[in-house]
């Protein structure tokens, strides 16, 4: 048997090949007729005003920060979820403490208004 990670690499190569082959086929047979009007950003036919790299709402940044915290915490609980039945009540109670701390963080963010949109 091949090592599992070789399969993963192979499937990534397969995916890149699939997308690349589609692009290459299209590149070979598609017409080329660029013009200044075609290259302009689409704004429903209006004359474009300014650059698109505009300021965006700070909320997006806050949500991303909260997500990173939760995502990492969930990753910590995955190994626990696999084996906790063999470890009994002690492992369960430890995870209760962990999740309560996590929930307190959510409550704090909630009270501070980090979850309010607009």
């Amino acid at each position, binding site marked *: 048997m091949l090592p599992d990670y*070789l399969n993963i690499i192979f499937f990534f190569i397969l995916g890149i090949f*699939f*997308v690349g082959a589609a692009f290459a086929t299209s590149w070979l047979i598609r017409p080329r007729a660029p013009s200044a009007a075609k290259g302009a950003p689409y704004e429903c036919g209006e004359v474009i005003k300014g650059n698109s790299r505009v300021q965006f709402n700070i909320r997006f940044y806050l949500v991303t920060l909260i997500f990173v915290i939760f*995502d990492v915490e969930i990753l910590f609980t995955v190994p626990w979820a696999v084996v906790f039945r063999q470890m*009994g009540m002690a492992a369960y109670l430890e995870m209760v403490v962990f999740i309560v701390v996590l929930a307190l963080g959510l409550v704090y963010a909630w009270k501070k208004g980090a*979850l309010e949109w607009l």
Partner: protein
Amino acid sequence: MNYPWMALLFLVVKGVCILAFFAVNAMFLIWLERKVSAKIQNRLGPMVTGPHGSLQLIADTVKLLLKENIVPTEADRFVWWLAPFFVAVPTVAAFLCIPFSATWIVSDLNVGILFICSITSLCVLGVFMAGWGSNNKYSLLGGMRSAAQIISYEVPLLLSVLVVIMEAGTLSMQGIVHAQEVGWFFLKPNVLVAFLIYLISATAEVNRVPFDIPEAESELVSGYHTEYSGMKFSMFFLAEYANLFIISAVAATLFLGGWLGPWRPSAVWFLLKVYGIIGFLMWVRWTLPRVRMDQMMAFAWKILTPVSLINVLVTGWLLVIKG
């Protein structure tokens, strides 16, 4: 089968089969979606190309192949060009450990479900790169919204998957199916809650109505893929439907017993369950209106996340008490 090159050859054959299934399945789903939406809106849908328009998607593919590639002048060209890869490649890779039947799985990784969850969340990078790289205000807004939505719903999604991992005691996809031989997981009340949370969050993950804020066409034209044309656009489209299949396949495997069924062949059962869930999601898409951005974010963080945290604790308690 002890020779490495035989195993490699076998892997290549499996990979080609998966690619063929990937493409045909996505085309079938697009056709099905058009037919379902037509039926719900009391129309006929595509009827001209082939019987009941079944060849429509082949015609569409040829058309998209022949389309000119329009690059926005001020686009961040490299990021813009790379984005379709980031969206489509993970969806192909995720097919690696989808168990079609007891033996039809390319590789039953011992971290199967974790692999699928992590690989499919790579798509958010592609979506954001597309939004940023296009140099279009609609694309930027769509990309930002989409990124915020996908990462917000990732949390309840992973927590509901965690409930299944606790019940099964394994991360391997086949292991999870085998753990359900005594009874499908969704029959337990706590896992049923997790199933509902999973379905809602997964719908949001693939940007489908009622959570299609990133592509809200009445406000944002087409969201992050406004500036894409031809084959690049179709990669986004293909990935969307491949993702729909993947989330339904994962739902069928985790909650509905995967390929288990009263009689063989088991792959038929698996596909029945998967297309059942897909049919349900299509029905939902053409029935419900779109929710607002603030409602959607509040729903993820203030309702789904607390409920799924409590659900994890309750599941742990039930399992520990049972021993």
